[in-house]
């Protein structure tokens, strides 16, 4: 085999590859199959996320180029984005080529996209009540006030302009 023949054989597939590359990228992007943007910083995935971390108890946090999201091991979920927008529920959230999808060990989910972040705690977020059940008593645990009624623990938090009581797992077992 002559030397130029070998070069031709190598060059032809390379040329085909170059021509096919935009199609390949477009189709994979359309199908939502491409996990990593060719532009690098525009998306991340669980494995390759810069700043992604999994805690010893199953909590998970991830930081994207324009926001960050975290899912706690139990039911807490927080998110910080440039505008502090938070999304609950999965109806408007789908995994796609420009997003990061993180699933916690107990059903929590977090997404980070180029324009913000979204989180969903297990069962759609922790439950809270505006008034404590009758008979609830206050207990101080690690310097913080909790309330317990019928074995269920509540921690006071602000929701909007009012104090509500968020159901939590027994903080003493953590």
């Amino acid at each position, binding site marked *: 085999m002559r030397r130029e023949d070998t070069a031709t054989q190598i060059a032809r597939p390379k040329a085909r590859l170059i*021509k096919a590359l*935009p*199609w390949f*990228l*477009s189709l994979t*992007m*359309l199908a939502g199959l491409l996990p990593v*943007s060719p*532009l690098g910083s*525009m998306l991340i995935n669980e494995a390759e996320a810069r700043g992604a971390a999994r805690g010893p108890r199953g909590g998970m946090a991830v930081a994207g180029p324009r926001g960050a999201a975290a899912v706690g091991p139990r039911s807490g979920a*927080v*998110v910080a984005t440039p*505008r*502090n*927008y*938070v*999304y*609950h529920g999965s109806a*408007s*959230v*789908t995994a*796609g*080529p*420009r*997003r990061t999808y993180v699933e916690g060990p107990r059903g929590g989910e977090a*997404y980070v*996209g*180029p*324009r*913000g972040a*979204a989180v969903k705690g297990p069962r759609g977020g922790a439950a*809270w009540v505006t008034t404590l059940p009758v008979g609830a008593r206050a207990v101080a645990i690690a310097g*913080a*006030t909790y309330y317990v009624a019928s074995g269920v623990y509540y*921690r*006071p*938090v*602000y*929701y*909007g*302009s*009012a*104090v*509500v009581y*968020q159901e939590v797992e027994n903080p003493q077992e953590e």
Partner: protein
Amino acid sequence: MRCYAMIGIFIFFCQLMSPPAWSAAAPKKAEVPDIEPQAGAVLKQMCDYLKNLQQFSVQAEITEDVRLTSGQKIQYGKSLEAAVRRPDRFRAESVGDADNRLLVYDGKTITLLDRSKNFYTTIAAPPEIDAALEHGVQAFNLRAPLADLIYTEAYQYLTAGVISGFYAGLSKVQGVPCHHLAFTQKDIDWQIWVENSPTPAPRKFLITDKTAQGLQFTAVFTKWDTSPQSADARFTFVAPEKAEKIDILPAAAPASPKKKEKKR
């Protein structure tokens, strides 16, 4: 073949440029509200008057309907005292049947205190009243029924989402002659009584929630002071003894800043 490659590259970049499906929906172009000229002029006059007040304090008596789980409708009341010093100080304290609350904005943070329960929370806020209130409402779902009157661009906030408005005539609120204006939005109707004088301050504000079987929020402004002596200390939060700092939950969903349908 080159043509196909170019199309492929175009589609690829279109994908990169398009917003994700779950991102906040782009605000639709606002429709021009059908506001009667006289109503619009009085409202604008009031907003300009408030905008040009560098500092003021106001007292208001507020009543708010609440529907009990039994279906019965009852009314709670509270007294509100608010102080504004533009551009970066704000304080509001309410004492009433259902709550005893304080909000202090010091140019850097917004602090909420529930005096009855002795819990407070603090959130970082932009260094200007409008942006700070907007941040509190959008990011933390803070309820600020009267915030629309405080914003520098109050007219835009008040009329955002308005479908129509008309001038209902002259009226008196606590003996003060006022222009009575009425507006309707998709979910609420609201009315405002503006003092008929060279100092066109709002004297009464009423919101009817059409989605909640006509529950109403009413504020009657009893005392305006446009030259209060407000020291910095008034806008500085000092935690009461044994008050406990707690977390605040972020808002459940975003809303476009100037597309608020509901004002409460």
